[in-house]
């Protein structure tokens, strides 16, 4: 019996600790800002906003499309009425699916203001 134990002691295979590699993988983590299925990286580019706003203004029946530039003022340069300005602002709201509060919408007087407002609005699409 003792002999058997002595022999077994010599033949015992030492237990090896397998390197725990699983724990390292979770720390690689996700690349910080790249989220493939996020819906929050679809903000419009400035050029896109400019193009769409100019299209809206050009398709207004009382406006001469040749005069429309990104800095044009609705009442001074295009000769529109204040009520026409209101209509244009509403058309821009519909184009970008925005809801502009009344006080803010009253201040939008020119293309540049409109473009800036739409570009800085978080929910424009």
């Amino acid at each position, binding site marked *: 019996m003792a002999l058997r134990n002595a022999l077994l002691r010599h033949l015992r295979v030492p237990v090896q600790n397998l390197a725990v590699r*699983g*724990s390292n993988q*979770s720390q690689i*983590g*996700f690349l910080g800002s790249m989220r493939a299925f996020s819906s929050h990286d679809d903000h419009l580019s400035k050029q896109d906003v400019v193009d769409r706003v100019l299209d809206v203004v050009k398709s207004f029946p009382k406006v001469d499309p040749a005069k429309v530039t990104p800095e044009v003022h609705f009442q001074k340069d295009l000769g529109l009425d*204040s*009520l026409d*300005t*209101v*209509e244009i*602002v*509403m058309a821009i709201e519909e184009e970008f*699916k*925005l*809801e502009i509060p*009344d006080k803010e*919408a*009253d201040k939008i007087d020119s293309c540049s203001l409109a473009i800036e407002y739409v570009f800085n609005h978080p*929910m424009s699409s």
Partner: protein
Amino acid sequence: MSGVSSAAYFARRVAQKERVRILYRRALKDTLNWAVHRHIFYRDASDLREKFNANQDVEDVDRIDKLIAHGEAEYDKWRHPDPYIVPWAPGGSKFCRNPTPPAGIEIVYNYGQEDNP
């Protein structure tokens, strides 16, 4: 009239113009609420515009006030009970639905590996 060139008169006129613009904006949106089909909306919008244009040359401040009050009463009478509001705006269906999570909360991406890391 002595009040023609005074600042108070101009301030009153400016305030009236702003009221008119806001009234026109709300009335136009309301028209869009009622007349969903675009061709009907265009017709109603031009009618509304005619109504506004008919009074645009009035100079008497009190008369303008009365006209604006009359217009606002008409707008109140015609307000749509279920207006279209953009979903994320106040009153819309998505307003305050998913507020941004408080700062400092972080997601640990170890689904399935909680028990055997």
